[in-house]
């Protein structure tokens, strides 16, 4: 995974989508072997994604200085779909299913590169494995870096991957001791 992030940073070289996809597949297989519990694997993927996301946020902002500061979920969804996901996954995405006063929405990633060439056994999915949770984790991490606390879960849906995002709160910058606003 770090290879993928490195490619994005370097920008000069592109990594083969097949290689990336198969490397990710073997990573998940390895995790399944290590943890034996698909739910635990989902949690680990989420954690890995989160750590990637916190770094990607800075990378994304450095490359896209024209992206405005988001003030609501509609804007967040638009930046994710129009800028961030095409930039890092090389595919398109759309937001839909808005509920709860725009606090909860779904991002549908078409042709998720992680899912190409991969067939996840249905029994693992039923046991709680969320194969593309790393993407959801990365979104959660990146948004947390820009002070938005969200919950994100990934669901496979045929050729598409759905990321359900629920907005929780806006985080405050912690001030150094002795300072009050």
């Amino acid at each position, binding site marked *: 995974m770090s290879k993928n992030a*490195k490619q994005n940073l370097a920008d000069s070289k592109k990594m083969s989508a097949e290689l990336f996809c198969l490397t990710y597949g073997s990573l998940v297989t390895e995790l399944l072997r290590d943890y034996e519990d698909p739910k635990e694997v989902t949690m680990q993927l989420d954690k890995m994604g989160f750590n990637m996301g916190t770094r990607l946020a800075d990378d994304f902002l450095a490359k896209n200085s024209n992206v405005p500061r988001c003030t609501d979920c509609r804007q967040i969804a638009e930046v994710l779909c129009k800028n961030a996901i095409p930039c890092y996954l090389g595919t398109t995405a759309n937001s839909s299913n808005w509920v709860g006063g725009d606090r909860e929405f779904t991002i549908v990633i078409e042709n998720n590169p992680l899912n190409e060439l991969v067939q996840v056994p249905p029994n693992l999915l039923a046991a709680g494995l969320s194969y593309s949770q790393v993407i959801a984790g990365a979104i959660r991490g990146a948004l947390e870096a*820009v002070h938005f606390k969200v919950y994100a879960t990934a669901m496979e849906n045929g050729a598409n991957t759905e990321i359900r995002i629920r907005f929780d709160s806006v985080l405050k910058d912690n001030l150094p001791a002795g300072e009050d606003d």
Partner: protein
Amino acid sequence: MTIFNIYIFDREGQCLYYDEWFRTKQSGLPPIQEYQLVFGMMLSMKSFSERLSTNDSNQTVNSFRTSAYKMNFLESATGVKILLNSDPAATGMPDLLQKIYQAWVETVNSPVANLLGEGIDHGFLQSKIRDVVTKHPAYV
């Protein structure tokens, strides 16, 4: 025209990087205390300008200027703050700050830098930032 010095702070207010070029007069304070003062001033300016803002729009403080220097700010959405002191007449500072931010992200944030351990490769970062700054037209 010239560029005097630069401070980079993380979101907790820790000074990650400091460098200077034509700074002929020192503040006379221990460096740590100077960083704290600079960071505190930026926080105060931010909250001050938010309080006195005449509308609700999302605003940022970009710079302040005296007869002798101009202090330019850049705060990324992730909370990284870059402060750069330049000649009051220097132009193109927002672009330069953005380039410095990019250089910082490429060196500090890259997986290559982090494979070697938690520490930042200070020399690499320094050469990158010096390169960006000395190539800028305002640096003479």
